[in-house]
Protein backbone atom coordinates (compact mmCIF):
# COMPACT_ATOMS: atom_id res chain seq x y z
CA UNK A 1 0.00 0.00 0.00
CA UNK A 2 1.45 3.39 -0.82
CA UNK A 3 1.26 6.41 1.43
CA UNK A 4 -1.48 8.05 -0.67
CA UNK A 5 -3.69 5.02 -0.08
CA UNK A 6 -3.03 5.01 3.65
CA UNK A 7 -3.85 8.69 3.72
CA UNK A 8 -7.06 8.04 1.80
CA UNK A 9 -8.13 5.53 4.45
CA UNK A 10 -7.12 7.84 7.30
CA UNK A 11 -9.25 10.62 5.83
CA UNK A 12 -12.30 8.63 6.85
CA UNK A 13 -11.54 9.16 10.56
CA UNK A 14 -14.04 11.37 12.37
CA UNK A 15 -13.04 14.87 13.43
CA UNK A 16 -14.95 17.56 15.28
CA UNK A 17 -15.24 20.98 13.70
CA UNK A 18 -16.84 24.26 14.72
CA UNK A 19 -18.48 25.67 11.60
CA UNK A 20 -19.08 29.36 10.94
CA UNK A 21 -22.03 28.70 8.65
CA UNK A 22 -25.50 27.20 8.81
CA UNK A 23 -26.51 24.24 6.73
CA UNK A 24 -29.10 21.51 7.04
CA UNK A 25 -28.13 17.92 7.40
CA UNK A 26 -26.25 16.41 4.45
CA UNK A 27 -27.18 12.92 3.31
CA UNK A 28 -23.84 11.53 2.24
CA UNK A 29 -23.57 7.99 0.93
CA UNK A 30 -21.16 7.19 3.75
CA UNK A 31 -23.66 8.47 6.33
CA UNK A 32 -25.42 11.66 7.39
CA UNK A 33 -23.47 14.69 8.57
CA UNK A 34 -24.71 17.86 10.17
CA UNK A 35 -26.78 19.90 10.69
CA UNK A 36 -24.23 22.71 10.80
CA UNK A 37 -24.80 25.72 13.00
CA UNK A 38 -22.34 28.57 13.55
CA UNK A 39 -20.37 27.99 16.73
CA UNK A 40 -21.78 24.52 17.43
CA UNK A 41 -19.32 21.62 17.29
CA UNK A 42 -20.22 18.82 14.89
CA UNK A 43 -18.48 15.62 13.86
CA UNK A 44 -17.55 15.08 10.20
CA UNK A 45 -15.18 12.82 8.27
CA UNK A 46 -11.65 14.21 8.19
CA UNK A 47 -11.63 14.75 4.40
CA UNK A 48 -14.62 17.04 4.78
CA UNK A 49 -13.28 18.78 7.88
CA UNK A 50 -9.99 19.57 6.18
CA UNK A 51 -11.73 20.82 3.07
CA UNK A 52 -14.03 23.11 5.04
CA UNK A 53 -11.07 24.35 7.03
CA UNK A 54 -9.09 25.14 3.89
CA UNK A 55 -12.04 27.12 2.61
CA UNK A 56 -12.19 29.06 5.86
CA UNK A 57 -15.59 27.67 6.81
CA UNK A 58 -14.74 26.16 10.17
CA UNK A 59 -12.11 25.64 12.77
CA UNK A 60 -10.93 22.18 13.76
CA UNK A 61 -11.25 20.94 17.33
CA UNK A 62 -8.20 18.82 18.14
CA UNK A 63 -9.11 15.23 19.03
CA UNK A 64 -8.81 14.39 22.75
CA UNK A 65 -5.55 12.58 22.29
CA UNK A 66 -3.89 15.46 20.43
CA UNK A 67 -2.79 16.99 23.70
CA UNK A 68 0.76 17.27 25.09
CA UNK A 69 -0.11 15.82 28.47
CA UNK A 70 -1.94 12.81 27.09
CA UNK A 71 0.72 12.19 24.48
CA UNK A 72 3.47 12.36 27.09
CA UNK A 73 1.62 9.72 29.11
CA UNK A 74 1.25 7.61 25.98
CA UNK A 75 4.92 7.95 25.21
CA UNK A 76 5.88 6.78 28.73
CA UNK A 77 3.49 3.88 28.51
CA UNK A 78 4.89 2.88 25.14
CA UNK A 79 8.48 3.01 26.29
CA UNK A 80 7.75 0.95 29.41
CA UNK A 81 5.70 -1.71 27.71
CA UNK A 82 7.28 -4.64 25.95
CA UNK A 83 4.26 -5.02 23.70
CA UNK A 84 2.63 -2.47 21.49
CA UNK A 85 0.12 -0.37 23.39
CA UNK A 86 -3.26 0.48 21.98
CA UNK A 87 -3.22 3.78 20.16
CA UNK A 88 -6.10 6.21 20.68
CA UNK A 89 -6.48 6.53 16.91
CA UNK A 90 -5.85 3.90 14.23
CA UNK A 91 -4.28 6.54 12.00
CA UNK A 92 -2.67 8.75 14.64
CA UNK A 93 0.32 9.81 12.59
CA UNK A 94 -1.53 10.58 9.37
CA UNK A 95 -4.39 12.34 11.14
CA UNK A 96 -1.93 14.45 13.07
CA UNK A 97 -0.03 15.34 9.91
CA UNK A 98 -3.16 16.27 8.01
CA UNK A 99 -4.69 18.31 10.83
CA UNK A 100 -1.47 20.06 11.75
CA UNK A 101 -0.81 20.98 8.13
CA UNK A 102 -4.28 22.28 7.38
CA UNK A 103 -5.03 23.91 10.71
CA UNK A 104 -1.90 24.61 12.74
CA UNK A 105 -3.50 27.71 14.30
CA UNK A 106 -6.42 25.64 15.62
CA UNK A 107 -4.19 23.30 17.60
CA UNK A 108 -2.57 24.64 20.78
CA UNK A 109 1.04 23.50 21.34
CA UNK A 110 1.24 22.14 17.83
CA UNK A 111 5.04 22.01 17.78
CA UNK A 112 5.15 20.03 21.00
CA UNK A 113 2.48 17.68 19.70
CA UNK A 114 4.42 17.08 16.50
CA UNK A 115 7.53 16.16 18.45
CA UNK A 116 5.68 13.83 20.82
CA UNK A 117 3.94 12.00 18.01
CA UNK A 118 7.21 11.61 16.18
CA UNK A 119 8.77 10.20 19.38
CA UNK A 120 5.95 7.69 19.83
CA UNK A 121 6.24 6.63 16.20
CA UNK A 122 10.00 6.18 16.55
CA UNK A 123 9.55 4.11 19.71
CA UNK A 124 7.02 1.85 18.08
CA UNK A 125 8.93 1.39 14.84
CA UNK A 126 12.12 0.56 16.76
CA UNK A 127 10.14 -1.97 18.76
CA UNK A 128 8.72 -3.37 15.56
CA UNK A 129 12.16 -3.71 13.97
CA UNK A 130 13.59 -5.60 16.92
CA UNK A 131 10.62 -7.93 17.15
CA UNK A 132 10.87 -8.64 13.44
CA UNK A 133 14.51 -9.62 13.86
CA UNK A 134 13.63 -11.79 16.84
CA UNK A 135 10.76 -13.37 14.95
CA UNK A 136 12.88 -14.31 11.95
CA UNK A 137 15.63 -15.72 14.13
CA UNK A 138 13.17 -17.84 16.06
CA UNK A 139 11.98 -19.26 12.72
CA UNK A 140 8.42 -18.42 13.67
CA UNK A 141 5.63 -19.34 11.33
CA UNK A 142 3.18 -16.67 12.39
CA UNK A 143 3.00 -13.62 14.59
CA UNK A 144 0.33 -11.77 16.52
CA UNK A 145 0.44 -8.05 15.93
CA UNK A 146 -2.29 -6.53 18.03
CA UNK A 147 -2.47 -2.74 18.23
CA UNK A 148 -0.10 -2.16 15.35
CA UNK A 149 -1.55 0.57 13.15
CA UNK A 150 -1.81 0.37 9.38
CA UNK A 151 1.02 2.78 8.70
CA UNK A 152 3.28 0.82 11.05
CA UNK A 153 2.43 -2.45 9.35
CA UNK A 154 3.12 -0.72 6.08
CA UNK A 155 6.58 0.23 7.27
CA UNK A 156 7.67 -3.43 7.30
CA UNK A 157 5.99 -4.14 3.98
CA UNK A 158 6.95 -5.66 1.63
CA UNK A 159 10.26 -6.56 3.30
CA UNK A 160 8.96 -8.73 6.14
CA UNK A 161 6.33 -10.81 4.33
CA UNK A 162 8.69 -11.29 1.38
CA UNK A 163 11.50 -12.55 3.58
CA UNK A 164 9.11 -15.00 5.17
CA UNK A 165 7.92 -16.14 1.73
CA UNK A 166 11.51 -16.96 0.87
CA UNK A 167 12.25 -18.75 4.12
CA UNK A 168 9.15 -20.83 3.66
CA UNK A 169 10.12 -21.67 0.11
CA UNK A 170 13.58 -22.75 1.23
CA UNK A 171 12.32 -25.10 3.89
CA UNK A 172 9.71 -26.52 1.55
CA UNK A 173 12.29 -27.15 -1.15
CA UNK A 174 14.66 -28.70 1.35
CA UNK A 175 11.89 -30.95 2.58
CA UNK A 176 10.83 -32.02 -0.88
CA UNK A 177 14.35 -32.81 -1.99
CA UNK A 178 14.93 -34.88 1.15
CA UNK A 179 11.69 -36.62 0.40
CA UNK A 180 12.61 -37.44 -3.17
CA UNK A 181 16.04 -38.66 -2.04
CA UNK A 182 14.54 -41.01 0.48
CA UNK A 183 12.04 -42.15 -2.11
CA UNK A 184 14.83 -42.96 -4.52
CA UNK A 185 16.45 -45.02 -1.82
CA UNK A 186 13.23 -46.88 -1.24
CA UNK A 187 12.99 -47.89 -4.84
CA UNK A 188 16.61 -48.95 -5.15
Amino acid at each position, binding site marked *: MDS*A*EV*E*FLAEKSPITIVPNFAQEKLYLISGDVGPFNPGLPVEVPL*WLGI*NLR*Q*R*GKCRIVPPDWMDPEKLTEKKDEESQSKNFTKMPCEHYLVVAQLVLTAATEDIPNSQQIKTLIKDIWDLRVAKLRSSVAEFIQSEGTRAKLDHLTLLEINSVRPFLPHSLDHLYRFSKTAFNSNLSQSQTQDYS
Partner: protein
Amino acid sequence: MLADKVLELIRELERSKDGQMSTFNEDAIRLVLEEMNTLFEQNQQDVNATVAGDVRFFSGVHLRHAALERNKRCLLAYLYNRLERIREMRWEFGSILPGYIRATMCEPEIQWFNKYNKTLATYMRSLGEGNGLDLTQDIKPPKNLYIEVRCLQDYGEFEIEEGDTVVLQKNTTHYLLMAHCQHLIRQGILEHVE
Protein backbone atom coordinates in the same frame (compact mmCIF):
# COMPACT_ATOMS: atom_id res chain seq x y z
CA MET B 1 26.57 -21.68 -30.28
CA LEU B 2 23.51 -23.82 -29.72
CA ALA B 3 20.42 -21.81 -28.75
CA ASP B 4 22.55 -18.70 -28.45
CA LYS B 5 20.52 -16.45 -30.68
CA VAL B 6 17.43 -16.67 -28.52
CA LEU B 7 19.34 -15.48 -25.50
CA GLU B 8 19.89 -12.22 -27.33
CA LEU B 9 16.15 -11.66 -27.29
CA ILE B 10 15.93 -12.28 -23.57
CA ARG B 11 18.83 -9.91 -22.99
CA GLU B 12 17.02 -7.35 -25.06
CA LEU B 13 14.02 -7.57 -22.71
CA GLU B 14 16.31 -7.23 -19.74
CA ARG B 15 17.96 -4.12 -21.21
CA SER B 16 14.68 -2.34 -21.83
CA LYS B 17 13.34 -3.01 -18.35
CA ASP B 18 12.79 0.66 -17.57
CA GLY B 19 9.51 0.51 -19.46
CA GLN B 20 10.92 1.48 -22.85
CA MET B 21 10.25 -0.67 -25.87
CA SER B 22 12.95 -1.71 -28.23
CA THR B 23 12.06 -2.34 -31.85
CA PHE B 24 10.56 -5.74 -32.50
CA ASN B 25 13.50 -7.96 -33.44
CA GLU B 26 12.12 -9.79 -36.42
CA ASP B 27 15.55 -10.86 -37.70
CA ALA B 28 16.52 -12.59 -34.47
CA ILE B 29 13.19 -14.40 -34.38
CA ARG B 30 13.65 -15.61 -37.94
CA LEU B 31 17.14 -16.86 -37.15
CA VAL B 32 15.90 -18.76 -34.11
CA LEU B 33 13.09 -20.32 -36.11
CA GLU B 34 15.60 -21.36 -38.77
CA GLU B 35 17.84 -22.88 -36.14
CA MET B 36 14.87 -24.78 -34.78
CA ASN B 37 14.03 -26.22 -38.16
CA THR B 38 17.63 -27.26 -38.72
CA LEU B 39 17.80 -28.92 -35.30
CA PHE B 40 14.57 -30.67 -36.04
CA GLU B 41 15.78 -32.01 -39.39
CA GLN B 42 19.02 -33.24 -37.88
CA ASN B 43 17.05 -34.96 -35.20
CA GLN B 44 14.79 -36.62 -37.75
CA GLN B 45 17.84 -38.19 -39.37
CA ASP B 46 19.34 -39.33 -36.10
CA VAL B 47 16.03 -40.67 -34.87
CA ASN B 48 15.81 -42.78 -38.00
CA ALA B 49 19.31 -44.08 -37.37
CA THR B 50 18.42 -44.83 -33.74
CA VAL B 51 15.32 -46.68 -34.77
CA ALA B 52 17.46 -48.64 -37.23
CA GLY B 53 19.52 -49.82 -34.27
CA ASP B 54 22.41 -47.35 -34.09
CA VAL B 55 22.25 -45.98 -30.52
CA ARG B 56 25.25 -43.65 -30.83
CA PHE B 57 23.03 -40.74 -31.80
CA PHE B 58 20.61 -41.09 -28.94
CA SER B 59 22.17 -38.46 -26.64
CA GLY B 60 22.46 -36.00 -29.48
CA VAL B 61 18.75 -36.29 -30.12
CA HIS B 62 18.04 -35.50 -26.50
CA LEU B 63 20.32 -32.53 -26.50
CA ARG B 64 18.78 -31.06 -29.64
CA HIS B 65 15.33 -31.62 -28.30
CA ALA B 66 16.22 -29.75 -25.12
CA ALA B 67 17.54 -26.91 -27.27
CA LEU B 68 14.32 -26.88 -29.27
CA GLU B 69 12.21 -26.68 -26.13
CA ARG B 70 14.38 -23.92 -24.79
CA ASN B 71 14.17 -21.93 -27.99
CA LYS B 72 10.42 -22.21 -28.01
CA ARG B 73 10.09 -21.18 -24.40
CA CYS B 74 12.36 -18.17 -24.83
CA LEU B 75 10.56 -17.04 -27.98
CA LEU B 76 7.22 -17.15 -26.19
CA ALA B 77 8.72 -15.32 -23.22
CA TYR B 78 9.94 -12.61 -25.58
CA LEU B 79 6.50 -12.23 -27.15
CA TYR B 80 4.70 -12.31 -23.83
CA ASN B 81 6.87 -9.74 -22.14
CA ARG B 82 6.40 -7.36 -25.02
CA LEU B 83 2.63 -7.80 -24.86
CA GLU B 84 2.76 -7.00 -21.16
CA ARG B 85 4.56 -3.78 -21.94
CA ILE B 86 2.13 -2.94 -24.72
CA ARG B 87 -0.67 -3.51 -22.25
CA GLU B 88 0.90 -1.02 -19.85
CA MET B 89 1.04 1.52 -22.66
CA ARG B 90 -2.71 1.22 -23.10
CA TRP B 91 -3.14 2.37 -19.53
CA GLU B 92 -0.53 5.04 -19.83
CA PHE B 93 -1.32 6.59 -23.23
CA GLY B 94 -4.91 5.57 -23.92
CA SER B 95 -6.34 3.84 -26.95
CA ILE B 96 -4.16 5.67 -29.47
CA LEU B 97 -0.45 5.11 -29.14
CA PRO B 98 2.11 7.76 -30.06
CA GLY B 99 3.79 7.12 -33.41
CA TYR B 100 7.24 6.57 -31.95
CA ILE B 101 5.89 3.66 -29.93
CA ARG B 102 3.90 2.15 -32.77
CA ALA B 103 7.10 2.24 -34.79
CA THR B 104 8.69 -0.24 -32.38
CA MET B 105 5.84 -2.73 -32.76
CA CYS B 106 5.27 -5.36 -35.43
CA GLU B 107 1.94 -5.63 -37.22
CA PRO B 108 0.58 -8.57 -35.15
CA GLU B 109 1.45 -6.59 -32.00
CA ILE B 110 -0.57 -3.65 -33.26
CA GLN B 111 -3.42 -6.03 -33.93
CA TRP B 112 -3.08 -7.43 -30.43
CA PHE B 113 -3.15 -3.92 -29.02
CA ASN B 114 -6.39 -3.20 -30.89
CA LYS B 115 -7.90 -6.40 -29.59
CA TYR B 116 -6.84 -5.57 -26.04
CA ASN B 117 -8.40 -2.16 -26.47
CA LYS B 118 -11.65 -3.72 -27.52
CA THR B 119 -11.73 -6.30 -24.71
CA LEU B 120 -11.02 -3.59 -22.15
CA ALA B 121 -13.60 -1.20 -23.60
CA THR B 122 -16.27 -3.91 -23.60
CA TYR B 123 -15.53 -4.68 -19.98
CA MET B 124 -15.55 -1.04 -18.88
CA ARG B 125 -18.82 -0.37 -20.71
CA SER B 126 -20.46 -3.32 -18.97
CA LEU B 127 -19.82 -1.95 -15.49
CA GLY B 128 -22.54 -0.45 -13.32
CA GLU B 129 -25.28 -2.34 -15.13
CA GLY B 130 -24.37 -0.88 -18.45
CA ASN B 131 -23.65 2.70 -17.35
CA GLY B 132 -19.96 2.11 -17.78
CA LEU B 133 -16.95 3.25 -15.78
CA ASP B 134 -13.64 4.42 -17.18
CA LEU B 135 -11.04 2.57 -15.15
CA THR B 136 -8.16 4.44 -16.72
CA GLN B 137 -9.26 7.50 -14.74
CA ASP B 138 -9.00 8.01 -10.96
CA ILE B 139 -5.60 6.40 -10.73
CA LYS B 140 -4.66 8.23 -7.52
CA PRO B 141 -6.79 8.94 -4.45
CA PRO B 142 -8.62 12.24 -4.93
CA LYS B 143 -7.09 15.26 -3.27
CA ASN B 144 -8.98 18.49 -3.20
CA LEU B 145 -5.83 20.36 -2.75
CA TYR B 146 -6.17 23.95 -1.68
CA ILE B 147 -3.12 26.15 -1.86
CA GLU B 148 -2.39 29.62 -0.60
CA VAL B 149 -1.83 32.10 -3.39
CA ARG B 150 -0.89 35.77 -3.51
CA CYS B 151 -2.10 38.10 -6.25
CA LEU B 152 0.71 39.72 -8.15
CA GLN B 153 -1.59 42.04 -10.09
CA ASP B 154 -5.20 43.20 -10.04
CA TYR B 155 -7.33 40.65 -11.83
CA GLY B 156 -10.86 41.35 -10.63
CA GLU B 157 -13.60 38.82 -10.04
CA PHE B 158 -12.70 35.19 -10.32
CA GLU B 159 -15.29 32.45 -10.16
CA ILE B 160 -14.39 29.55 -7.93
CA GLU B 161 -16.42 26.38 -7.39
CA GLU B 162 -20.19 26.31 -6.92
CA GLY B 163 -20.57 29.84 -8.21
CA ASP B 164 -18.69 31.61 -5.42
CA THR B 165 -16.47 34.41 -6.57
CA VAL B 166 -13.43 36.06 -5.05
CA VAL B 167 -11.93 39.40 -5.98
CA LEU B 168 -8.29 38.99 -6.87
CA GLN B 169 -6.62 42.24 -5.89
CA LYS B 170 -2.92 42.90 -5.92
CA ASN B 171 -1.17 41.72 -2.72
CA THR B 172 -4.19 39.91 -1.28
CA THR B 173 -3.84 36.21 -0.41
CA HIS B 174 -6.43 33.47 -0.89
CA TYR B 175 -6.94 29.75 -0.46
CA LEU B 176 -7.92 28.34 -3.84
CA LEU B 177 -8.27 24.89 -5.34
CA MET B 178 -5.02 24.14 -7.06
CA ALA B 179 -6.82 22.71 -10.08
CA HIS B 180 -8.82 25.92 -10.50
CA CYS B 181 -6.07 28.47 -10.29
CA GLN B 182 -3.14 26.73 -11.91
CA HIS B 183 -3.61 28.62 -15.15
CA LEU B 184 -3.52 31.94 -13.30
CA ILE B 185 -0.27 30.90 -11.66
CA ARG B 186 1.19 30.06 -15.06
CA GLN B 187 0.05 33.44 -16.38
CA GLY B 188 1.84 35.14 -13.53
CA ILE B 189 -1.32 36.65 -12.02
CA LEU B 190 -1.03 34.56 -8.86
CA GLU B 191 1.92 33.07 -7.07
CA HIS B 192 1.93 30.01 -4.85
CA VAL B 193 2.83 30.93 -1.27
CA GLU B 194 4.86 28.02 0.11
